């Protein structure tokens, strides 16, 4: 019998599950995420190895907030040199425009413009010049760039010039110098694609160190299987690919928890609510796949280009500060310190966990919950219920009829019998994200602007290509299918054209 392991390294907890061939959870474990992430990871794996032998493990799939946290905390980021391949010198909007100022100043080492780029009809804006690129590379390196972001006008339609820049960079700065090409990261929309590419470039440092350390941890435990990293569309990729495209791992966490939650509940269509230590996130799963939003997807205030899971959040979680006199919950939270700053654990802060413990609704060994009146308990729990139900309502009218699956560490804080609608918390709810990681498939996405003369034929052709690419990534022939399809028509063009994004997975 061969097993798969799924692991989620979150802000507070590192969770893991062992899953059999029938996708049943046969073992699970939870530890606190450590400062040195590989330590917590190793501890967790050791716990799982109490239940399963290293030789019986087929593979390990990992979801982590590493990348998201590095951006939010401004830590361990490479300095990035941006080369805009755009012969007309677009100065109207500079790189990192609109970024939080401190993040921009940490990340952006310098910007150079080089001759080239393409018009919408494929002709070059100005001729591409080798010498321009060499000069730009040397200048950026001198300014302290450690990683490059190359962004060419209309490169998703015409990647040649960006690929040429990569070759020249290898000759000029050495083949180890990290280079991120925008056409491999995002689609049409220069600023969002540039943002994604710059983020990708700066994240390569922590990925290089962080992920390879995790592989080292696996090997010291005698495990020989492959390590897959999950990405924001719910699929998994090899370690090397994650190291090249770390920006794709952002939001793998919410995707894994929404997929995991719906699968634990045995549903293909559901609203999934993940109650964590600090926040509660809600998402919608349709046909087993989280609903995604393309436009206005952001991380840390930066607009991005690829579709991200559609998540709505409120600041309500297990560690949220509770004020009984004003009947408020949050927005501040003790987060990962809930179990020593909370009143039940010798601290002085009243949290939502303390309230749940006080009524005996949950119990934690060693906890001494404070005395809370029946009235206060009901008042707080009712407010939490109202806040969460309001959050669920805000995801959309069609979704109101779907069952609501409650997951996450904080899901056990509530009694759902008096909540309206079909609301419940399935078994293993507190490791739903690790379960989602274990179920991750292989996928490929096509993101192109195409002529739309014969719409249905065009889409069918692209779907075939997406499926072939997914199969090449490792998708299972028996389960491969189209999981996401978005079409954005463009107007005032001389002929009908549209941006088409198709994801196949299996």
């Amino acid at each position, binding site marked *: 019998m061969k097993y798969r392991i799924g692991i989620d390294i979150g802000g507070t907890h590192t969770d893991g599950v062992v899953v059999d061939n029938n996708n049943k959870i046969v073992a699970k474990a939870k530890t606190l995420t450590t400062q040195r992430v590989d330590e917590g990871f190793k501890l967790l794996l050791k716990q799982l190895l109490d239940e399963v032998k290293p030789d019986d493990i087929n593979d390990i799939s990992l979801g982590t907030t590493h990348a998201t946290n590095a951006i939010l905390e401004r830590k361990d980021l490479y300095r990035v040199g941006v080369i805009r391949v755009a012969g007309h010198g677009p100065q109207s909007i500079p790189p990192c425009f609109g970024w939080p100022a401190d993040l921009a100043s940490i990340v952006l080492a310098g910007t150079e413009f080089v001759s080239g780029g393409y018009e919408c009809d494929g002709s070059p804006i100005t001729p591409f010049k080798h010498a321009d690129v060499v000069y730009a590379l040397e200048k950026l390196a001198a300014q302290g760039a450690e990683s490059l972001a190359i962004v060419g006008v209309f490169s998703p339609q015409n990647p040649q010039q960006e690929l040429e820049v990569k070759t020249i960079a290898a000759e000029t700065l050495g083949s180890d110098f990290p280079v991120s090409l925008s056409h491999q990261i995002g689609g049409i929309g220069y600023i969002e694609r540039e943002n994604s590419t710059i983020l990708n470039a700066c994240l390569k440092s922590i990925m290089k160190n962080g992920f390879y350390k995790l592989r080292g941890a696996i090997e010291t435990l005698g495990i020989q299987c492959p390590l897959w990293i999950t990405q924001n569309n719910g699929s998994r990729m090899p370690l090397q690919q994650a190291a090249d495209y770390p920006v794709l791992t952002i939001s793998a966490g919410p995707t894994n928890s929404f997929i995991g939650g719906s699968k634990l509940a045995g549903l293909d269509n559901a609203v999934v609510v993940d109650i964590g230590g600090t926040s509660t996130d809600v998402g919608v799963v349709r046909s087993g796949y989280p609903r995604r939003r393309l436009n206005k997807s952001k991380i840390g205030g930066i607009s991005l280009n690829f579709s991200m899971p559609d998540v709505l959040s409120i600041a309500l979680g297990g560690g949220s500060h509770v004020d009984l006199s004003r009947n408020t919950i949050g927005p501040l939270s003790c987060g990962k310190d809930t179990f020593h700053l909370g009143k039940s654990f010798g601290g002085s802060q009243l949290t939502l966990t303390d309230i749940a413990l006080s009524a005996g609704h949950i119990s934690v060994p060693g906890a001494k919950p404070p005395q809370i009146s029946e009235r206060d308990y009901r008042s707080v729990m009712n407010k939490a219920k109202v806040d969460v139900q309001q959050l669920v309502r805000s995801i959309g009218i069609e979704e109101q009829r779907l069952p609501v699956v409650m997951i996450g560490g904080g899901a056990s804080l509530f009694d759902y019998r008096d909540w309206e609608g079909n609301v419940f918390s399935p078994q293993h709810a507190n490791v739903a994200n690790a379960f989602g990681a274990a179920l991750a498939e292989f996928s490929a996405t096509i993101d192109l602007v195409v002529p739309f003369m014969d719409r249905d034929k065009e889409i069918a052709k692209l779907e075939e290509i997406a499926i072939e690419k997914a199969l090449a990534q490792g998708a299972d022939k028996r389960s491969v299918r189209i999981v996401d399809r978005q079409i954005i028509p463009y107007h*005032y063009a001389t002929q009908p054209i549209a941006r088409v994004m198709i994801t196949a997975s299996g």
Partner: protein
Amino acid sequence: MQKIAASDLDNLALGSAILGSGGGGDPAYDLMIARHGMEKYGDVKLLKTSELADDDLIVPMGFMGAPLVGIEKLPSGIEFSRILTSLEKYAGKKASVLMPFEVGGGNAFAPFAVAAQLGLPVLDADMIGRAFPELQMCSCYLKGIPAVPAFLSDSFGNTVIIENGNSFDLERIARKVTVAMGSCSALVMHVMTGAQARNSVVSGSLSHAVNIGEEMSQSCANGVDPLQPLLKLTSGVCLGAGNIVDIDQVISDGFLKGKVTIRNEKETYEVFYRNEYLAVTSGGQYTASTPDILMLIEQQTGVPLTSESLQYGIKVNIIALPAPKIWQTLQGLQLVGPRSFGYDFDYHPVNQETL
């Protein structure tokens, strides 16, 4: 309002989207361009038409071309300053005041970056008071101000001057030149004196758009649906509400043409569009049409929906704001009334009493 600051730009985006009546495109990039220019060079002075001198040289401007190109091939930033150089040589005097040709949509932002850079004021006005699909659908055309000499520039500052023709010729030639420039160009037309502008522009439209945006965002910040505050501010009406249940559209001649069906328990509404929303029916009867400003906004949040961003299931309010006065005249209606768009009925302005 006496000036526009970078902090007003989000409100301008919201207000210009409402006045865009379903057209005008996504202003995200136009907003960034204006914001960058103003953060770099400072606030922009806003002039009232009453403050114009007779011999001021007024320059209406905007971008023309495929929005797809607008979000890939960012402007270099010299497009309008090069046009002004050519214009000043042609006119033999300095440009003194800039203005957007349309307040509806992304082009509301067109003058701000260059105004900030050159220290020029922007006129609190536009030539339409909303958005319409074709160049000749503007107040200056109605008032007999020639569209030419018109100036087009590409990102390298290559400038083309079109003179001696009429608006229809301009439309035709300008579109071809724009394609040659990479399907995106900077355009200046209907250049006029302060004396001409005073009676031919739609005054106050920029500050009106900012006020709309401010009113709506204040409501949202207070957790209140911005619908009623918006209608009160604009003397508009709500024609109905419901979910989008069907979207039937084609791209024809570069326009997004179609019909969206909205339904609630009691009523079914249809909204017809050709980029901009042009007519609304309720239970099969026409209840509103162009030139009144028809718009779909999301319930609770007031987020305006352009015809390109329609999606199934969204819960919307259908609103109508009174048309700028110039479009309600006989001449105005001949140009942009329902019959000019092919509908077989006469214009009836919406007001509180009709519902």
